[in-house]
């Protein structure tokens, strides 16, 4: 139950942004590749240098230790990375209910990473992120590398999760139909600024 607030927040390429993403709200971002949308998400996760301020609820980014900020504002990159052989070794805590919600049972923890399909990988990557209970989500084209079916499945799982947990979400998506399905508010990046996106 926390909103994500950007105050004169400036990442590379883009002009400073003022934006409030309410708890439970999904804001989509779109724009040509290289327009700076991924860089904005990276800066919001405090992975890149930036200026201005961001807040999760009442907490300022600059006053929180970076690991705490990143736990509360969780980022899901387009491509998931895995460093051990087994699924289990990537989880610090196991939430059986969460795994079940994402379509797994706890047996999946013994699976080998190499044998996961790309859809399973992305869903497990989401499970890994959500098991830390982030209050806001930064999603960088989470369904871009998935086929239509797995993409839709992941999309509806995220939307259900967002509604149930009142999570603020910024979702970068290049698919206009997807944006129309998921967005409460939508923005296009034109030049170096955000413009509201509308559908006729």
């Amino acid at each position, binding site marked *: 139950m926390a909103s994500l607030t950007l105050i004169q927040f400036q990442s590379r390429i883009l002009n400073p942004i003022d934006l409030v993403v309410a708890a439970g709200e999904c804001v989509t971002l779109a724009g040509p590749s290289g327009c700076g949308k991924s860089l904005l998400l990276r800066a919001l*996760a*405090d*992975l*890149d*240098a930036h200026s201005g301020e961001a807040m999760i609820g009442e907490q300022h980014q600059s006053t929180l*230790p*970076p*690991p*705490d900020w*990143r*736990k509360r504002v*969780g*980022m*899901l*990159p387009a*491509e*998931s*990375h*895995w*460093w051990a052989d087994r699924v289990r070794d990537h989880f*610090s805590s196991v939430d059986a209910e969460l795994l079940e919600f994402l379509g797994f049972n706890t047996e999946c923890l013994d699976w080998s990473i190499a044998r996961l399909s790309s859809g399973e990988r992305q869903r497990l990557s989401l499970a*890994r*992120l959500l098991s*830390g209970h982030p209050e806001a989500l930064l999603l960088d084209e989470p369904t871009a590398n998935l086929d239509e079916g797995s993409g839709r499945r992941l999309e509806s799982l995220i939307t259900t999760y967002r509604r149930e947990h009142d999570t603020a979400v910024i979702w970068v998506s290049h698919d206009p139909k997807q944006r129309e399905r998921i967005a409460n508010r939508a923005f296009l990046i034109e030049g170096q600024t955000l413009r509201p996106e509308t559908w006729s």
Partner: protein
Amino acid sequence: MELIQLGPWDLSVAAVLVLALAAISWRLRLGVEVQLLVAAIRSILQLLLIGLVLKTLFAQSNPILIAALSLLMLSIAGYEVMARQQRRFKGLWGVGIGSLSMFISSFSITILALKLVVQVEPWYTPQYLIPLLGMMLGNTMSGMSIALDNLTYNAWQQRGTIEAKLMLGWDWDHAISEIRRNALRAGLIPIINAMAAAGVVSLPGMMTGQILAGSPPLEAAKYQIMILLLIAVGTGLGAIFAVWVGSRRLFDQRQRLRLDRLR
């Protein structure tokens, strides 16, 4: 046994053999003959020069000159560590991390050895200090450059993994720990191999030299044991320090992975 002096004739036999090797390389089109000859000439000149320098230094035993030569050796070693990195730190850090770690490990351990183990008076007697320091630097240099190279190269390769860990809220320390461990292990392997092979597979250079110079083999063995153990400690401490400073430098105050600090 007396030391048998080598004359110009003895050295030219070895030199002619190198020329023959270069000719074979040229004939087989291996393409290394120029490098081989340049390296051979370099080593001849460098060694003759250091022979002359040491001759003067030993005669004078002037602390300032000894310190100057030690620092020169250190900075060349620091440069070599830097030059062997595929991805090295930009600016002064590039040469600084290696030099500082070697300064801390090699110098302190050499001085410790001279004060406590060999107990020469004064401890900076160049006949002992310079060869000991040289051996420490030469060996820690390779361990250090392997460890640092391993660290920066793997951080570069595994950027996605490191940042994935950061995104999950891991500390920088935790996110790089596996890469750091591997870098240290890689840096220590050469000296572990050298200790394991010592006397069985290879007769270490220093021991060979002392035996050729007429020392009783057991005395030479004792010196060699001391040197190997000290080198192991020096390489270990130096590599731990270098890898720790290096891995810290890969992250900034806000625990962001800063690969832009590498070139």
